[in-house]
């Protein structure tokens, strides 16, 4: 995790003056607000060693203190993992040996099993039946049994990073505009997390639905502005 955050900072620094970066205080603030702080979910029952329950007698003030420390603990638990720059596809061809063509119908996958290398840095090369020797792509590197299930839920750690990533995909929407869109969503309507996810997901994939959503969101925005205007008055 340290290694990754350092890498992120190293990449972020050249553009720091150009556009807001993930590590800015403002951005982090907005992202934390989107993430939300649902104590019930953060501290939901997890598998623990079985022990008899403990009871403590507290005054109201003590209870407040304990709740406060619990909130801080939740905030720490919800610390967002840093957003890495998008990994570049690996297309290195190490050599092309046409003389090897037609040798075999299967490809050879060579993995280096030296002990102390992190998984991403291993040498995994593939020798094709055509004789080209190339490095393995990211999809080939991952264990074939792992599936990608992306659950976007509130009060979960990666959602801040995901929102950050998706902002790059919305060409037409500026950064602040996106957050204004999402804020009325999460604050006005107490929608289920899947709805919010679908909003962002659909932004990414379906242009058609985006227009429908945009209408809804505009409505919500107007309502929000009205209420904020009324409250200020």
């Amino acid at each position, binding site marked *: 995790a340290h290694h990754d955050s350092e890498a992120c900072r190293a990449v972020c620094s050249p553009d720091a003056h150009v556009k807001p970066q993930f590590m800015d205080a403002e951005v982090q603030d907005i992202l934390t607000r989107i993430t939300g702080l649902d104590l019930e979910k953060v501290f939901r029952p997890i598998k623990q060693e079985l022990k008899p329950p403990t009871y403590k007698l507290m005054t109201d003030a003590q209870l407040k203190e304990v709740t406060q420390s619990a909130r801080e603990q939740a905030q720490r638990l919800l610390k967002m993992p840093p957003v890495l720059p998008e990994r570049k596809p690996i297309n290195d061809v190490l050599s092309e040996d046409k*003389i090897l063509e037609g040798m075999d119908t299967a*490809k*050879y996958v060579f993995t280096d*099993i030296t002990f102390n290398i992190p998984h991403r840095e291993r040498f995994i090369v593939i020798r094709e039946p055509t004789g080209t020797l190339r490095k393995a792509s990211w999809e080939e590197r991952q264990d074939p049994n792992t599936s990608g299930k992306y659950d976007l839920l509130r009060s979960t750690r990666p959602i801040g990073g995901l929102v950050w990533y998706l902002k790059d995909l919305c060409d037409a929407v500026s950064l602040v505009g996106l957050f204004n869109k999402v804020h009325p969503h999460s604050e006005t309507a107490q929608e289920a997390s899947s709805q919010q996810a679908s909003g962002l997901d659909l932004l990414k994939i379906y242009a058609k639905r985006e227009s429908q959503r945009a209408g809804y969101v505009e409505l919500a925005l107007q309502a929000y502005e009205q209420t904020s205007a009324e409250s200020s008055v």
Partner: protein
Amino acid sequence: MASLPCDESVYLNMVHLSSFLLKTYHGGHIVIRLAMAGHKQSNRPFYRIVAAYNKRARDSKYIEQLGSYDPLPNIYNEKLVSINSDRIKYWIGCGAHPTKPVAKLLGLAGFFPLHPMTVTETERHRALAEEAAPEDGVKQQEL
């Protein structure tokens, strides 16, 4: 390998550079070779790339396992080979000899330069395939 001018004893001395006590009665040298991995009863070969004494039986006690080779392709049509390059470099530095199949595999991996027999085998394979193909063509014409 035969053209090296050094005496056998030089290899023994080089092998003694490693840290554990070597049994001097072996009188042989260390090789890196493929050992069948105990699936003998199941009609399913699987090889371990292994550093072992030359005189030992193929599948018996080895010094260290350096990788594996699965000759049967998997569902993605890949033959999986694992190579512990760090340790292979160590044993070669101690004077171990890789056998022909191991040298071929390492040549295919890019770890060694390509083995000449690989090229020869490919050419022979291609020649056989060409012989088979025109024969089929002739047969179909006859039919």
